[in-house]
């Protein structure tokens, strides 16, 4: 894992002192709210529906046990004993007091964490594939590059006041688990014909009220040019992006209005004109950062993990857990364990302090001290010996964390929605809970197979509904919650935006509508191997629309 050097440590410590001073000046009245707001937002502190909310950065979703324990401790001591893991791999505390936030940030700094640039019109926390460094299909670990981008973008003087927020994701595999095509910049590690690593560069993706899929503007960028090229992209955006209308200020709108090809040319010209070598990454520096992310020394285990196999043969529940929650590791005899934060009927992404401590214990004992947060709001132990998984499973089960539903219908992304968020227009969490309760994680969910439901409580789309296989968007109409359903979205390498089925459904009716969609799919798929998305792409909207609005007039709004 990356460890702060003296510069990092001093920088974060200084920021804590600055913020402590800013909070004191705010509480004393020296600063008014208009003057203070920018400072609190640059430190991740929002004022939400019920209280302040602190968004803590988890760079590229990677945590040590020590850091996870600190998050648990902070949530317990300064909040209400739980936190919410987000789609940017961050953690949000829902109830911190302003007066306590300098102390919270000081606590976080003691374990090399902070909340800098988790808000504001700047480059936000850089996200990465949550299986980075472990996945069998990976070309290279994306996290060293995400870390290089983090260092470059932290309080970057030119890019601290962009037209709008700016999100970067990096993936190291052809299979996209980091949703790079719905990011302002998505970097995909590829190899050129000579076998050298570089990046395919995707720009201008995003969700929100104007969803767009990114355009690939470069097939291959040498790794040494990562920062110079990033600077060119963000500079073109900073100069040409709209500042007259916040709803048209993201880079996706610039790309759309200017045209992808003229935008690409502008970036290439900027890159060529300024590429004097100042930002060229020395190989020694790339290697130095890479070394922090060197995988643990895993010795390939015997081909037959005996404990694992025996348990799998004897225990159906364990077998179900293995099928859904274990992914293939690049080293034989190891697996990647995803710990679901989607208990049936629970709140997606929420974890109590006790659960955070349990995951930290497991990572320390069995997982080489590494934990990941996925953008799908689950936790991951990336390096686990298969023969340790029975013990891990038992421990998780004892603490209510062994839900076997990864990738299934109850593994739902949901934003906080109207239960917490001041921007929301409808609730999302209880809709997720009801869908989860309806389908569960048993035989029915297993029969349905891979199906990603994503729910947002307003058009800002924090719940990624545009790229849900089934997307649900909560709106408010005449004072009543109404839910629009989209079908066929996907955030993977074959990224698509969902199509709207038609009129929305009431809070009461939306779960029935989802069930109608699911039953329609089950009735038309060729066989069990044809998952929902594949079936939708084959048959299109018509049968689903017919089922929703004709045969069974479920639409009531």
């Amino acid at each position, binding site marked *: 894992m990356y460890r702060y050097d003296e510069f990092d440590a001093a920088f974060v410590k200084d920021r804590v002192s600055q913020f402590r001073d800013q909070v004191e000046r*705010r*509480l*004393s*009245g020296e600063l*008014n*709210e208009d003057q203070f707001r920018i400072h609190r937002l640059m430190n991740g502190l929002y*004022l*939400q*529906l*019920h*209280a*302040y909310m602190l968004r803590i950065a988890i760079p590229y979703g990677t945590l040590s046990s020590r850091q996870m324990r600190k998050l648990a401790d902070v949530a317990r001591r300064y909040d*209400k004993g739980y936190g919410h893991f987000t789609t940017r791999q961050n953690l949000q505390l829902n*109830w911190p*007091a*302003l*007066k306590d936030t300098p102390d919270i940030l000081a606590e976080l700094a003691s374990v090399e964490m902070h909340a800098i640039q988790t808000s504001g019109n700047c480059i936000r926390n850089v996200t990465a594939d949550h299986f980075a460094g472990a996945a069998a299909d990976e070309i290279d670990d994306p996290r060293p590059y995400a870390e290089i981008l983090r260092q470059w973008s932290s309080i970057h003087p030119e890019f601290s006041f962009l037209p709008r927020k700016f999100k970067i994701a990096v993936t190291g595999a052809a299979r996209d688990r980091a949703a790079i095509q719905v990011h302002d910049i998505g970097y995909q590690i590829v190899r050129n014909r000579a076998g050298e690593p570089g990046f395919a560069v995707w720009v201008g993706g995003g969700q929100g009220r104007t969803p767009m899929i990114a355009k690939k503007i470069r097939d291959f960028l040498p790794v040494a040019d990562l920062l110079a090229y990033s600077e060119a992209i963000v500079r073109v955006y900073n100069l040409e992006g709209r500042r007259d209308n916040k709803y048209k200020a993201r880079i996706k709108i610039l790309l759309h209005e200017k045209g992808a090809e003229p935008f690409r040319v502008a970036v290439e010209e900027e890159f060529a004109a300024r590429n004097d070598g100042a930002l060229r990454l020395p190989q020694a520096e790339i290697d130095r950062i890479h070394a922090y992310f060197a995988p643990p020394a895993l010795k390939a285990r015997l081909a037959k993990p005996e404990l694992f196999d025996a348990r799998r043969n004897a225990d159906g529940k364990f077998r179900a857990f293995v099928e859904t929650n274990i992914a293939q590791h690049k080293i034989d005899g190891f697996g990647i364990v995803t710990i679901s934060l989607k208990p049936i009927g629970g*709140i997606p992404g929420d974890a109590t302090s006790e659960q955070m401590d349990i995951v930290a214990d497991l990572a320390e004992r069995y997982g080489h001290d590494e934990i990941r947060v996925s953008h799908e709001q689950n936790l991951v132990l990336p390096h686990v010996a298969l023969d340790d998984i029975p013990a891990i499973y038992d421990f998780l089960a004892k603490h209510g964390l062994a839900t076997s539903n990864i990738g299934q219908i109850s593994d739902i992304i949901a934003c906080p929605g*109207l*239960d*917490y968020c001041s921007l929301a227009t409808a*609730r999302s*969490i*209880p809709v997720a*809970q009801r869908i989860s309760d309806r389908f569960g994680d048993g035989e029915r969910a297993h029969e349905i197979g891979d199906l990603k439901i994503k729910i947002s409580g307003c058009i800002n789309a924090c719940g990624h509904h545009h790229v849900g296989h089934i997307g649900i968007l909560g709106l*408010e109409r005449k*004072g*009543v*919650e109404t839910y629009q359903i989209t079908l066929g979205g996907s955030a993977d390498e074959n990224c698509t935006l969902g199509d709207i089925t038609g009129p929305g459904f009431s809070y009461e009716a939306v779960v029935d509508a989802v069930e109608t969609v699911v039953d329609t799919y089950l009735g038309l798929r060729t066989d069990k191997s044809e998952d929902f998305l594949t079936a939708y792409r084959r048959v299109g909207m018509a049968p689903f629309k017919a089922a929703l609005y004709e045969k069974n007039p479920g639409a009531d709004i």
Partner: protein
Amino acid sequence: MPQVVTASRLVDGIVVFWSHGGWVELLDQAQVLQTKDDVEANIKSAQADVAANLVVDVFAFEVKAAAGHVEAVTLRDRIRTAGPTVHRDHGKQAVAR
């Protein structure tokens, strides 16, 4: 429709309600204002506490009041004045129990 003046308390962000020159934490204890003039006058008074750095974001919202019980009209305001519907153990609804 009757209204209540509200704000967020600066020091901890907790939702508070205006009541006869001060702030209370529970909606049932809020001053229910019946006329537009009353609402405007009380917002003006409450704004002094923004200047005094006690609260932020003062505004008024519609309520229904009967038999000593006050309830917000819109879902958003009901959630804001009670707490998350998914965590009945948090927010004012927990205190009110």
